[in-house]
């Protein structure tokens, strides 16, 4: 159970850090592109957490 908590924590913090990194990279881009990056970041965050949960239960 402890391991699972640690794994979720690392996953969430890792995805947030990558999201921040992407925002920094996209700061000089146009408005539309920045919005697109933000949308995809949220999408990857949600998908990453959901898929980890599914894979953890199935595999």
């Amino acid at each position, binding site marked *: 159970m402890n391991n699972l908590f640690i794994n979720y924590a690392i996953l969430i913090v890792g*995805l947030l850090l990558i999201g921040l*990194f992407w925002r920094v990279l996209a700061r000089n881009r146009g408005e539309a592109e920045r919005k697109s990056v933000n949308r995809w970041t949220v999408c*990857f965050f949600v998908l990453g957490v959901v898929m980890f949960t599914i894979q953890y239960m199935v595999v």
Partner: protein
Amino acid sequence: MSEEIKKDLATEEINADSGYTDRAVPLDQRRTWPSMTFAWFGAAMFVGLYYSGVELGSSMGTLNNALLAILCGCVFLAGFVTLNGIMGYKTGCTAALIGRYSYGSRGAAIPGFHVTDTGWNIMSTAQIAVILAAIFPVIDMRVFCVLCSVLFLTNSFIGFKAMVTLNKFAMPILLFTGLYGLFRLHVITDGGLMAVFGMQQEQTIALGAGITIVVGTWVSGSSRAADYFRFAKSTKDTVIAACVGFFAGLIICLVIAAFWGAGIGAGEIVPTLTTLGGGMMFFGFIMFTLQTWTTNEHNGFVTSNAIPACTKAVWGRERIKRSTTVAIMIVLCIIFCGFGVEKIFTPFLSVLGTFLPAIGAISIADFYIMSRTNYHWTGHKHYYDFDVNDPEVEHHKFNPSTIPAIIAGVLVGFLLDWGIAAVNSMVTSIVVYCICCIVLSGVRKKEAAKNQVVEGRK
């Protein structure tokens, strides 16, 4: 500055940013061999080579057998890359765009719909996740799968120059780790490295199958060599980058891993690194992370070039943007990566090594053979002298000779038990394609009639 010039410059900037996916690279954007060699040397190295090398070293009976398979496979791949690269340099186009010459402006969707790089992306991410999970056992392998899926395609949004920078870090670390691994093997083996040549393992992989495994490691990327070599300034730059950068990067990884495999006797990379000791797990962690990152960026780059061109061929305009293509790759990687796909690595390589040469061979046969004869399917001679967006190229929609050539190549590759599957597949496709181009004179006459209509309009 006039508005027209400003507009031209803006268009140029947009095209430069998007990697010239819809037209030839202008001559002033071309690069000389040092930049190309750096890019290819780094891009050639990836975790899969170490997996394959260790497996060959531990499963081909002796190290000499493994080295022979590696040499033959690498020579084949370097030749394949050079042939595709020269096509890229001459036309200035991506591999997907070059398909318009040989497959037709609509038929280009066949080589363009190249999903194998997406498969590779998933496979190499799963492999690095296994290694990372072995190094940090408290963290689940599937956490690494998700994080690496997202992180390792970041630079595909930025472009080619960023990849060169990343490769500059990857190369020295890889060389150091590989050579240090050999040194460690020398230290821990009775009799040193030379004793590895005398070691006998059980032979479960024959020479032909070994070569196919080596070919399978890079045949997918090799068929896309034009994506990078369209930036080359000359044939010489292309040949040097392919034969020095690509060949060296490929063979160094495979040979080092074969030594490790033959010396340690373990078929997998993690126990091999553990047995080598001396901090090899730490150096391996840095090396594999950088390697996988650069290779995944390469996969992202070529796929994001190919898919928009493919949609343009089918629907007449680009339906998917480059960034969207990369995002879809990340989504697929997150979904599939954590389901243990790394366990089907060798069958995956065998399928790629048989299937893809058949598709790539058609462009090669068309460029190097048929376009120099009077039997080219479009009725033109020296067809590749036309710009890829010329109406003369645009109005030739589909080349029917490609279908029997692909089917014959794939069937021979899968069914023939003799020789090397990749070579059988490629040679069969070339022969059948050339025969079909000569025999199907009706197609040629029909396309030649279209040429006259276009000529009349001019």
